């Protein structure tokens, strides 16, 4: 069994690092290191020592210019090779909210066959409502996507908290996403069907896409925040839904990541 070491990036306005650490702790990770990206860039902390890398949510560079863009470009230019090694070794990367925006804008998601670092082919842009909103929606995993992150995950309620979450892909990239089943999650309605209807689909995203993976399935990016639904009392109506389980459904994604590294990597 492998030791599970998780590296969580913070700094430059990332702000969901603590709760992302809690989620990995509850999922049973052996060691969690949360550090400023500059310590990884300077190699004071080596990416090679970890098997899971997390880019939490937040407002890197205050979302100035465009969300995730500036930090994405910085990471790509200064950590490109190390990231390439990491991904090629089959290790896991998760990007949530601003983390997803960073992964997309540095070209790591959805990626291309045979190369890790690519040009940006997709984007996350301003919600159709032109507003930042915090609300709970339902997301459904794509059964045809074989990513280890998604194993046994069922449709679940989760918070979205963003102003720029509308996923748009260039035509080629969208073809590849559909052909290779790279969609990870879609926003769904009360019948668990993907929806374009606001606010169930909170941002007007194409094909109701809430998250995607790369082809190998070891990189997951998603706008909703599973790290803050790891416990019953985080659900917005837990005081009335007595049948809710003690553990929040979002935890499964983190447990999957930890189990995969421990047993299969």
């Amino acid at each position, binding site marked *: 069994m492998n030791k599970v070491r998780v590296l969580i990036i*913070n*700094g*430059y*306005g990332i*702000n*969901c690092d*603590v*709760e992302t650490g*809690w989620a990995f702790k*509850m999922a049973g990770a052996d060691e969690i290191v949360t550090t*400023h990206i*500059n310590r990884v860039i300077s190699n004071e902390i080596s990416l090679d020592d970890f098997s899971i890398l997390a880019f939490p*949510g*937040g*407002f890197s*560079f*205050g*979302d*100035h*210019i*465009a969300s995730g*863009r*500036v930090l994405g*470009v*910085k990471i790509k*230019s200064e950590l490109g090779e190390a990231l390439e090694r990491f991904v090629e070794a089959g290790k896991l990367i998760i990007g949530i909210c601003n983390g997803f925006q960073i992964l997309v*804008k540095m070209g790591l998601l959805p990626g291309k066959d045979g190369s890790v670092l690519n*040009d*940006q082919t*997709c*984007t996350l*842009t*301003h*919600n*159709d*409502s*032109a*507003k*930042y*909103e*915090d*609300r*709970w929606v339902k997301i459904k995993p794509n059964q045809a996507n074989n990513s280890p992150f998604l194993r046994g995950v069922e449709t679940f309620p989760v918070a979205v*908290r963003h102003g720029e979450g509308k996923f*748009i*892909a*260039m035509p080629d990239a969208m073809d590849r996403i559909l052909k290779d089943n790279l969609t990870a999650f879609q926003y769904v309605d009360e019948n668990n069907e993907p929806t374009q209807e606001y606010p169930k689909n909170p941002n007007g995203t194409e094909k109701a896409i809430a998250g995607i993976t790369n082809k190998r399935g070891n990189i997951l990016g998603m706008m909703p*925040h599973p*790290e*803050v639904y*790891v*416990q*019953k*009392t*985080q659900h*917005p*109506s*837990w*005081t*009335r839904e007595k049948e809710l389980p003690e553990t929040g459904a979002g935890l499964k994604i983190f447990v999957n990541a930890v189990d995969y590294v421990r047993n299969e990597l």
Partner: protein
Amino acid sequence: MIFRLEVGLKREMTDPEGKALLKRIESDFGLKTLNSIRVLRTYLFDIKNGSIELIENFAKNVVCDPVTEYYSVGEYEPSEQFDWIVETGFLPGVTDNESRTAMWALKTFSKMEFDPEDNIFSGKKYLFYGEIDHNAIELVVSGLLINKLIQRFTLISGTEWRNGKKVGNKIPKVIAGTKPKTEIININVEDKELDNISKSRILALSIEEMKAVKAYYSNERTKETRKKKGFSENPTDCEIEVIAQTWSEHCKHKIFSADVNYTDTTTGEKKEIKSLYKSYVQRVTKELAPEKSWLKSVFTDNAGIIEIDKDNLFAMKVETHNSPSALDPYGGALTGIVGVNRDIIGCGMGAKPILNTDVFCFASPFFSGELPGTNLLHPARIFRGVHRGVKDGGNESGIPVVNGSIFFDNRFIGKPLVFCGTGGLMPKEVNNNPSHVKKAQKGDLIIMTGGRVGKDGIHGATFSSEELHEGSPVTAVQIGDAFTQKKMLDFIIEARDSGLFRSITDNGAGGLSSSVGEMAEDTNGAVVFLEKVPLKYSGLNPWEIFISEAQERMTLAVAPEKMEKLYALAKIHEVEISVIGEFRNTGYLEIFYDKEPVALLDMDFLHNGLPKYKLDAVWERKENNSFYPEEYDNYDAILCDMVSRLNIASKEKWVRQYDHEVQGRSAVKPFCGKDHDGPSDAAVVRLSPFTKTAIVASHGINPTISDIDAYWMTASVIDEALRNAVAVGADPDFISGLDNFCWPDPVYNAEKNPDGKDKMAALVRSNLALYDICKAYSLPLISGKDSMKNDYGSGKNKISVPPTLLFTLISRMDNVENAVTMDFKKAGDIVYVIGETANEMGSSEYYAYHGERKSGYAPRVYPEKFMASYKKLHQAIHKGLIASAHDISDGGLAVTVSESAFSGDLGVRVDLSKVPLRERIERNDIVLFSESNGRIVVSVHEENREEFEKMMEGIQYSEIGEVTSGKFVKISGIKGNVILNISAATLKEWWQKPLNLKLN
């Protein structure tokens, strides 16, 4: 060289910002002739060694999104026939966060050498398509797109553009004025001239205060010391400015420390009060403190600190930012929220903010009359701007807004009230030392960290006396920078945990003069070299550097041997730190600029030399009961109107835009109920997933009761805060409060402020109540603030805010899983009301609905009775007997049961004849809408009835009805006839309409 870059969405993309603006223009100006608006981002580069290629590369690789956007280096030529172009940008010196990130990115990615003066200026360009005339577009620009205090614009019509007129590349660069210098001010002059000095330099010092300064400088000992240290006999400009700053109402709370003569004309009672603060605010806490070992630090630090569990301390502070929000609602509110965050970062050894609260008082956003002043902004604009400021400040800092409210009254048209609160956590010990204490030591270096210093906020919200020219930096308003502050916060928490500093405080009002001044009290002296302070732009005079309120800065005391590690940590976090001086024990604050003496400040005189105010307060009772509205057989339509009154209506659309869940602790969020849209009474914030302990945050505010008596206003808001907290499950034995006074000027002046004595009396009465009620509730105050000049205009035309106290309450629950929300849970549950209803319609929403604002009895508070029922309810909640609990406040019982019903997607049947009354009441409307304190509506499952009723024995409560599956609110009157029967869904629609749908 100057280059222009413009970035816009590709034509086939919809433009959400343009669409939202179109909607707003329609609703604000009734203009329906516009077809569309496209919005572009503009960047003006002022780069000495720049080139087109550099800008092209930067645009392609960093600025422009390849999927959705196009860019143009140089002015973009739209191919379609647009009708107007508006370009907006900032004025010189205004914080421009977008451009700062752009400059950082340009430096980082080009790997080129840049000139220190190189800069980027961001702006926006709007292309309007459709019919709109010149006057109308100017109205849109000034009413929606810019604030002329901080922004500039260029307007070009489509025809002019096609004839060759362009926006051009004029940059808002700050042009340095004269060489920095220190002036000597001759104060050895007659009184009239002294007064002139105070007025012309906007010192806001009274003649008595100016004379005290003069006396100090004429003192032989002062003269001798100054001579010995190489200083002039007369004060320097910096000294005068620092004295004015330190002695300002804002810093010294002169009104709260004044000697007051209070007369109650009705009873003939007279009182002489030596300091309201010491006699009431501080005294109640002092008297309660011995029995509360969990009070760790009160009234001494930037925030109050309590022990929340065995490992953690919790710090809380609430601030106001009223005047800045009136001038620039966005910048004012943003600065307010990031400013109070710094109070938490700078309290004790530094706490990490985990929650924000915000409460606003505005005039109606639908106000349609003429604004009473030409420099006033419309209340809708203030609402949106303040909301956006708080939203950006909280969201970008990763601090959830967990609790708040908005109170509407048109007297806030001249001055909105913007309360921003922050709570933070810190471990009880850091590096084996208690974290709530700190002390600078002699020889420690003075470190300034975070942002740089500009002329921001010099003289607070008043304009600087400096002659304005085109290149003058804007000083009146500040815009916060959440990003810079977040970086600084991360750095400070790491530095704290590594033991790299000995003391810390924030730079707020008074800037360095106040932060260094405060910390220097630890060692009794300090020396500061102002040329070492990093500046945003050159040309600041030494005194300006010292008192500037430029944001995002903290001051640290650091032992010299820790500097190396501190520099290394700052480098990782990309946070600027500068050594600007040293703490000493000389008894003086000594300030130099390039070796020139700038100020020599005697610490004792600075803090104790201020003459005391003497104020008169005369109270005349106003309470009367002469208003009797018509009674009705049916109240369906009236209840619809009531739930859509602004003080009751849903604020969901606005609150949803705040992140209320970041950091993962929120257990009772601002919204609850079946569809997550019911209005929660209080916030429950769990310390972490690994403990069941939670913080409960609530508040009470109801300024209009002051129209009758500020005593009962104060008593009512304290009780409201407490019952809100108790309703969600807070422990009434673990409560602490924060008092924030926002008052109209209470200093009498026959001409300018003829009713000053009445306003002062209101302040006295508010303090009397604060003492009485907090004492009776065993509710210590841990922090507070006052803002005493909330008026607009003067004399007869003066508009004053009603005397307002915001009471914030911090409590705890041991087991978060017992928390209760306000939504009804299940049909068949029994509905009870706890507490008694009385004929207390004074300042009620119901009387206000009928246009009556002066008549009616003010709601009373009976602390012993109320506390007894709160304690019983708390027990019942912790036994799991309560399905829902909702406090009765604005709109009374009828509104409360309606909210619980529609939030639970259920109905309710209520029998008014069963409502416990404190006195004989024969009118249905009083029972429906009275706002008596001490009342909570609860629902209980039938199987818990017996145990609940047994537990509640001995208190005033009664079963009044049941939760129904029929989804109707059905109420029978005192005589048994049905007086109200309306669908909960209809009520919900009315409740949601005004602020969620009608206001864009």
